[in-house]
């Protein structure tokens, strides 16, 4: 049972194979595209949204529009058949989770999803166990950042991190949330 407590036992740090060789490193680091260009419902909906095929083609109808790597994308658009991705992060059905509240209170993408800008294939970086959720729900100020830095992968508090956290918690109206019904509704 000890094995279940290791990262591997929690399906962490295992790159998930996808139907398409999509590389986050290239899109975020080389091109400097913000997370929210594709995951654009993250601040207004429970889901961050996997981008619709149409969104890929916003750019790829112009650049790399002959690339064989993008053949499945073009095919999806022409056939009107969705791309089927394999899910990496999933909270159980009995947990209510909403991306928008976390993002608009100043929890950065990197806090839960890790350095996606360094991943060739996305892998789970955090255990998503209840204990892990509660760690932050008890002391949210440790993981807060200014709203402008939410998608920044390398942001660190300048000076006293504790002080910054408390100031941000005060500013963005962030409180501990440990009632059962916060997540188990």
């Amino acid at each position, binding site marked *: 049972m000890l094995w*279940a407590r290791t990262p591997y036992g929690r*399906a962490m740090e295992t790159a998930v194979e996808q139907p398409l060789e999509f590389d986050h490193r290239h899109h975020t680091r080389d091109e400097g595209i913000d997370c929210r260009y594709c995951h654009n*419902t993250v601040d*207004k909906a429970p889901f961050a949204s996997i981008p619709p*095929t*149409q969104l890929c083609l916003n750019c790829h109808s112009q650049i790399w529009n002959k690339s064989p790597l993008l053949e499945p994308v073009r095919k999806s658009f022409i056939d009107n058949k969705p791309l*089927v991705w394999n899910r*990496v992060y*999933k909270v159980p059905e009995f947990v209510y989770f909403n991306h928008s509240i976390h993002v608009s209170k100043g929890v950065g993408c990197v806090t839960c999803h890790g350095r996606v800008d360094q991943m060739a294939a996305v892998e789970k970086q955090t255990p998503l166990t209840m204990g892990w959720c509660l760690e932050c729900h008890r002391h949210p100020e440790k993981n807060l950042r200014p709203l402008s830095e939410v998608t920044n992968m390398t942001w660190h508090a300048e000076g006293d991190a504790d002080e910054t956290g408390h100031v941000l918690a005060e500013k963005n109206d962030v409180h501990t949330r440990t009632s059962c019904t916060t997540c188990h509704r």
Partner: protein
Amino acid sequence: MSSHDQDPLQDHPEDHARSTVAGNGASTGSTRRISLPIVDEALAATEAASGAVREERKYWRSIAEKEGSPKLAAAAMREFPPGAAQLPDVSRRSFMKLFGGGAAAAGLAACHPSDEQAIPFVRRPEEVTPGNALHFATAYGIEGYALGLLVESHEGRPTKIEGNPDHHDSLGATSRYEQALLQGLYDNDRAKQLKHKDEPLSWRTFLGQMATLSARHAADVAPSCAS
């Protein structure tokens, strides 16, 4: 009329029921029906005319029972499935082994990466945000009176019906009929396609017919509107 009706003293469940209804509050307290020749003759005449044989009413508890499914009849022969009353042939010790092993395996199952898939839209409709519900204003009519409703819809599937607060009759409230409309929507027996007089009808044809109809009605009311 069958023979037993000729005997006024014969107790029969059917007669019993009839007398309780017909002989409402009979002071004698008797549950036996007194044979009245004039009534019997009238009944016999009606039945002979219709050619119908009076059957005892049958109630059924499932579609399978109504259709007389042989599978159901076979299953109904035994109250419990075969082997339900027998102890499994394992010792207490090996039961614990199996049980423990099963529990451990169930625990390990959670440790694999999720094999679920994430399927986005090809073209996301402008008003749709996956995960956020849309509310559509509509109306439902009972006996000629329409009630304004709001229908909550998740990714194109209606999930809840409430009253429209802006509708003067509803003011945000509904009755049980409106609340139950979703049951009708997801009913397996609901029509799966458009039909007109038992003939399948395409949506395009239907729209065409409706357009013709609405044009005709528009022409009808035009003078009164103009005045």
